[in-house]
């Protein structure tokens, strides 16, 4: 029976699986491209409510969730709290605007984020978090 060599095993690298939650189509396109550029695959949700439904229905498991703060129907703070209540263990990174003040950022972190990044997102901002 053939066994896999170390070289073969190295080649079977699990791709980073990312959920991008943002109501802005422009941001969704850019963030998807960034994730692809760093070797990941992504799924998108147009608002927090969609993100909750994805987890409730699909039993999906993501390595990373990029969570926008300001969204209709369910914002980033509420979504993060809900996902943590659902015992979602993924790394959740909040994406904030520079206009957000310290208090708003703190409230977002306390909702259950692992990290918070300011827009605009770049490869250089994300890579250190996943490494």
């Amino acid at each position, binding site marked *: 029976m053939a066994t896999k060599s170390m070289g073969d095993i190295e080649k079977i690298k699990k791709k980073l699986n990312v959920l991008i939650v943002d109501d*802005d*189509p*422009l*941001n969704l*396109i*850019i963030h998807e*491209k*960034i994730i692809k*550029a760093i070797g990941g695959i992504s799924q998108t949700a147009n608002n927090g409510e969609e993100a909750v439904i994805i987890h409730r229905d699909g039993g999906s498991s993501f390595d990373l969730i990029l969570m926008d703060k*300001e969204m209709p129907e369910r914002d980033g703070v509420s979504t993060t709290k809900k996902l943590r209540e659902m015992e979602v263990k993924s790394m959740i990174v909040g994406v904030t*605007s*520079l*206009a957000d003040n310290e208090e708003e950022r703190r409230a977002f972190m306390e909702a259950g984020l692992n990290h918070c990044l300011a*827009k*605009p997102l*770049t*490869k250089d901002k994300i890579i250190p978090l996943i490494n």
Partner: protein
Amino acid sequence: GYFSETQVKPSPKETKRQLCLSLSLSISVSSLHSLSLYPMDAHVAQLQMQYRNYILSLYQQGFLDDQFTELKSLQDDGTPDFVAEVLSLFFDDCVKLVGNMARALDQTGTVDFSQVGANVHQLKGSSSSVGAKRVKGLCINFKELCEAKNYEGCVRCLQQVDIEYKTLKAKLQDMFNLEKQIVQAGGIVPQVDIN
């Protein structure tokens, strides 16, 4: 003289032959010049230089910032139109949001500055995402004017935003036209190091 006293002078026949040869050579060279034959490589190099200088000027004049560089870095052979597609979405956003702001400011009676502000916030986010530096800067001022409920200031700022995004659109169109010319001339669009 051309010949020294000690050299053997060529015969008249040899001199005539040499004169005819040099004359025919000079005719050939002048024919080439008159046909204006310009090496293809030089034309591509000229276009590439023009492109580099144009891109640098867009950064130097503050139209673009590092985020545009990031967008360019994300474009690859598999998605050669990525930047164009993103910019197209951005300019669609500009049309929509400027329209929303104009309508909100055109209300007879009380202006809903929070609605204007919400559209400004969105445009600031979009412009930041594509590296549209001047548009983003205007949006920052605009937001403060909304918070101060400064009607005249908001109207003036909206006019500036309108001019600025249209100017950027025209300049980026020129950039894409230069890229097209380079490719059509058989060249490669160069990566421009802005640092």
